[in-house]
């Protein structure tokens, strides 16, 4: 169950945004990767399309990688 993947296992975080949150997690010994994020060229409209076309691990039971 997906909840079990979070509450039952060690936390491992991908941080997207404010770097201070990644720094705090690192100081806590939590495995964390800080994304070098920037707004996509083309703005929120492009961001929305990227989200729409993003790989869907749960769709149609096709199972993720």
């Amino acid at each position, binding site marked *: 169950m997906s909840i079990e993947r979070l509450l039952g296992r060690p936390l491992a975080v991908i*941080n997207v945004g404010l770097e*201070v*949150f990644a720094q705090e997690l690192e100081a806590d010994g939590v495995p964390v990767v800080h994304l070098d994020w920037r707004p996509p060229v083309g*703005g929120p409209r492009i961001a929305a399309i990227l989200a729409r076309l993003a*790989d869907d691990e*749960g769709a149609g039971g096709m199972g993720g990688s």
Partner: protein
Amino acid sequence: MTTGAVRAVVWRSYYQDSMALMRLAATLRERPGVREAAALMGTPANHDVLRGAGLAVPEAADAGPSDLVLVVSAATDADAEAALGAAREFFERRQRVVEESGRRRPRTLSSARRDLPDANLVAISVPGEYAAAEAMRALKAGLHVFLFSDNVALEDEIALKRLAVERQLFCMGPDCGTAYVNGVGLGFANVVTRGRVGCVAASGTGLQAVVSRLDALGEGISHAIGVGGRDLGAAVDGAMTKLALHALAADTGTELIVVISKPPAPSVLSPLEQAIRATGKPVVVCCLGAAPRADGNARWVATLDDAAGCAVATLRGQAWTPRSFGDPATVRTRLESIRGGSGALLGLYTGGTLAHEARVVLEPLIGAVAYGAHGGGPHRVLDLGEDEFTVGRPHPMIDPEARAARVRDSVERADVGVLLLDLVLGKAAHADPATPLVTALFDARRAAERAGRSLTVVASVTGTARDPQGLQRQTEALEGAGTIVLPSNAEAARFAALTLRRDLATTLLGGSS
């Protein structure tokens, strides 16, 4: 118009996060000769901010959302140039730290997952207009989401939570400031013990207050799932709250659940009560402003400290009733030492829920309390984290100067007799929020004295013994400036009310508990 120099530099394709930029601007402002400094990405909104601050310069006019704009206004050219040089060093140092660590920072979520294949949560704090897209991507990838960003459209929140529930994933937020998973604090989190209380919170500072209080009373947190401020509204229909309750019910480490929120929308109330009942565990519900009651396995309480107190008592099999003050004798002594007790009450808050709680506690005691800067009065509570106060300016939890300025300003202008404050500690917050506040309080006292007015300052400190700022140090700093510090926000509000309404002392402090 004053003379002086304005210098600017634009760094193309040099995106930096807003908090890093605010910290930089604050550092630059402290430099000799610097009058004003701005470090902003070139978004249309930020160009407006620059214009408003008189810092719009032609060389920055074509800066776009991925370009960093630095503008410094100083007494002399040399001062301005030195400040820009310091900024350059700041970024070079940051870059060196990254390079020396040898790790390359991924630019896409997919690459990040290659770097960290066991990742199970994505923490998102990008600007609001991009946050929903990032969250959607994470959910589709089968990852849980901690969504700190606010200014996310309601319809996006609904779509995100619909997908999250379908995939049995948490979407914590939008506008979720704090959460705890497996003993790790996310966002603005206090350092607390791991333990047996699970929380579901529609509020960041509300959660911080409850977990800090639990920690002080010797209990710890299993998990605290943030759901964002709109979750219990009619539109979102409690989607995440129900999922979180279900998860905590199944979690063997959770013995008792605390729910922290504003009152749910009428359509959501009954399903929420059902979900609470279905957990089969004791649940303490703090819906600020709702009437206290008992309902099967659930106990509804009026304030945040009541929630903590009731939870602890329940866990230990003790009886519990709400009390106005934990230590009425000490409160009485302090009350008697205060002269004066007239004028208006002004609450200057950094935590929205704490501001709301203050108002809920105050109004039955002192009458109408205006919320926000406009209309009503004389009594008023301001949530300085609200949009109207933070456009282009730092959130007061990150930069205490903003509130300090307001303290000076308000006491100088108005007939403020009682100042009510919160001080919120924890990770990611400012390293020493008490000091700028204390400096402002000294100035405010002097101003009040000059005007022949009395000024009472009442506060609570939300934090734990192990928080980086040092709970004791921060409390003592406030007390050293003549502030009366109470153990909780609700008690602080009640105390503030008592200074204006001595006649209430019997009710609030009198014999019975």
